[in-house]
């Protein structure tokens, strides 16, 4: 099963249109987007290498081949907007508000140092390594902290937006979920409530065709998972998750819709999971997923698609067009040379910081069960 095509699915690749949000992007924007795809891809590939090299413990949930969803959805947000990433969205933590400058300490996203400390389980992680992998967040940076329980942050997103409006804000919140996760009851409760109250919650569905070892056909009865929106009478869009500009367009439509008070929406981004569910599943995934399907599913690399688009627009000159070539390469094939040096350096800095950060002291294990009541008003 490959990323299914749907009638409502349009790809920018073939049909650029000046009425679309992406037509307003500058060349610099597009180049930044291209760069962010590299950043996300490199983060993923490097972590896999680190794990193989034995420098890293814990399970990796790869976002390889799904990077356009993160980059495209985050690029158009206001700094004050909120996001709620899940397991396959690690790059979202540092890509949020990347437009304000990756080095800008005031930007509304996490630093790569913080993210690496989380990956490596160090005390300088935003959560002081108390929960693993993507279970971090930041009240200050407007990133909702997730639990493992799939779809569990959608009602939280609704509550954050409810409070935002009571506070006079104009933020929107993007929540990310796999297509399998939409079967959870809390998905329905939260989307229904958001729809009743027209809360600006955009639910992005990363439909990578598989939920662990189960194909989407056993998780969702409709061809497009976005059709779940119809049950709530809300906007339901399908994007080509491999095309960062189509993701950008669809998400920006949903974001504008939400910000202008028209209510929540679902944006399904069709994609394909490159590897196993987590790295522990790579070998078994090769058994339960036909090779043919995997080849097809990975044939549309989001970096390649973006490159072609930029080339067509004349954004790339001859040299820069081919200087780096990460597309189509899996973690074991790609090397640092396949990535822009600033991308490699950026992550390198985060990793070094993490390796120098301490593991938390055991005593912290019993701290912070409760907030101190005395300090409350």
């Amino acid at each position, binding site marked *: 099963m490959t990323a299914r095509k749907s009638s409502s699915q349009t790809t920018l690749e073939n049909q650029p249109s000046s009425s679309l949000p992406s037509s307003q992007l500058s060349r610099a924007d597009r180049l930044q987007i291209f760069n962010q795809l590299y950043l996300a891809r490199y983060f993923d590939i490097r972590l896999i290498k680190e794990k193989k090299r034995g420098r890293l413990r814990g399970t990796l949930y790869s976002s390889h081949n799904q990077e356009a969803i993160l980059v495209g959805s985050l690029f158009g947000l206001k700094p004050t907007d909120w996001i709620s990433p899940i397991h396959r969205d690690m790059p979202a933590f540092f890509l949020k508000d990347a437009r304000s400058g990756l080095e800008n300490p005031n930007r509304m996203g996490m630093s790569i140092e913080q993210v690496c400390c989380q990956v490596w389980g160090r005390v300088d992680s935003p959560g002081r390594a108390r929960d693993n992998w993507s279970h971090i967040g930041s009240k200050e940076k407007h990133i909702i*902290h997730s639990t493992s329980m799939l779809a569990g942050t959608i009602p939280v997103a609704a509550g954050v937006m409810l409070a935002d409006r009571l506070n006079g804000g104009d933020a929107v919140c993007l929540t990310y979920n796999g297509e399998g996760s939409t079967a959870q009851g809390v998905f329905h409760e939260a989307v229904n409530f958001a729809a009743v109250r027209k809360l600006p919650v955009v639910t992005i569905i990363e439909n990578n065709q598989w939920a662990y070892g189960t194909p989407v056909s056993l998780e969702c009865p409709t061809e497009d998972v976005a059709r779940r929106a119809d049950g709530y009478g809300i906007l339901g869009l399908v994007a080509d998750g491999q095309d960062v500009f189509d993701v950008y367009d669809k998400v920006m439509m949903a974001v504008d819709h939400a910000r202008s008070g028209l209510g929540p929406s679902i944006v399904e981004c069709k994609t394909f999971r490159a590897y196993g569910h987590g790295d522990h599943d790579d070998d078994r995934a090769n058994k339960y997923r036909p090779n043919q399907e995997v080849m097809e599913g990975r044939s549309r690399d989001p970096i390649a698609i973006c490159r072609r688009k930029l080339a067509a627009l004349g954004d790339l000159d001859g040299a820069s067009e081919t200087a780096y070539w990460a597309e189509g390469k899996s973690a074991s094939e790609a090397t640092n040379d396949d990535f822009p040096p600033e991308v490699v350096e950026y992550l390198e800095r985060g990793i070094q910081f993490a390796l120098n950060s301490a593991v938390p002291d055991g005593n912290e294990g019993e701290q912070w069960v*409760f907030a101190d009541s005395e300090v409350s008003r």
Partner: protein
Amino acid sequence: MSASQTLESPKKQYLNALRDAIDEELSLNPDLICLGEDIGLLGGAFGVTEGLQAKYGTDRVFDMPISEAAIIGTAVGAALNGKTVMAEMQFIDFISCGFDQIVNMLATYHYRTAGEVSMPIVVRGPAGAYGGGALYHSQMNEAWFCNAPGLKVVCPSTPADAKGLLTASLRDPNPVLFFEIKELYRKREIEEEIPSHHIVRLGEAAIRRFGSDITLVSYGQNVYHCLQAADELVKEGINAEVIDIRTLVPLDEDTIFASLEKTNRLIVVNEAPMTCGFAGEIIARVSEKAFHLLDAPPVRITRLDTPVPWAKPLELHVLPSVEKIVNLAKRLVAF
């Protein structure tokens, strides 16, 4: 006491005391919002929030769909974005439908963020049996939440405590599960005057009756069973001390231990199922930490390990009663 009460009886029912606490906090804390099923227009199934939507508007007090998980999750999100939240469960029994959001999302938030985010949320609702509510309108399921670290658990037995503990809970930066005893909501016999701005700190037990022969520890409506049993026991020459713990988490162990210094005998009474219930927890703490004070086995009287059945004889059969307490106390004192 206060001017606003001049036209009413100065005595308050348990339910009105709860409403007063919410009302006062709504007026004092502009960040407090209240959400739940039918709490706005209707004012709640029992009327705890009656009049509050009219007074504070639909932004502050509003109705949610029948979605317990979304109610809790929304509360969590609102708290993450600066609000204090009172979330009502129409009956505490329905909290099971939002269980994951309580134990995994809400309870752990402060812990997993290493203190970055606190969750000033009170989840309250009517609880308890003895009213013929049957399996799903009678539960005392507090033990589940006591075994989910990060939640405070409170259960008032008097109007003054209802007011004082709810006020303290609404000001606590931690999530509080607040078990209200619906059979006490409008009970005339326990009406009492309550000073305005009355607060009862969480984690402090109350001694409801002093005695020297045996300690009866309880909470909620079983406190009254203990008090009645104590009256009976006097006739037998037995002087029982009755402790109402009021807060389960954190537990005021000292008051219990101090009582055992005098009495050396303990009965714990609650209406939850026995196994892994809070009565057993008290027995365990006492046995571990105050073993030397015990002259007889510490024992509990709880609901049998059954659901709460409907028909009256069935319901009474499985629940603690004055008679069961009296009989056990007599045996224990004779031990």
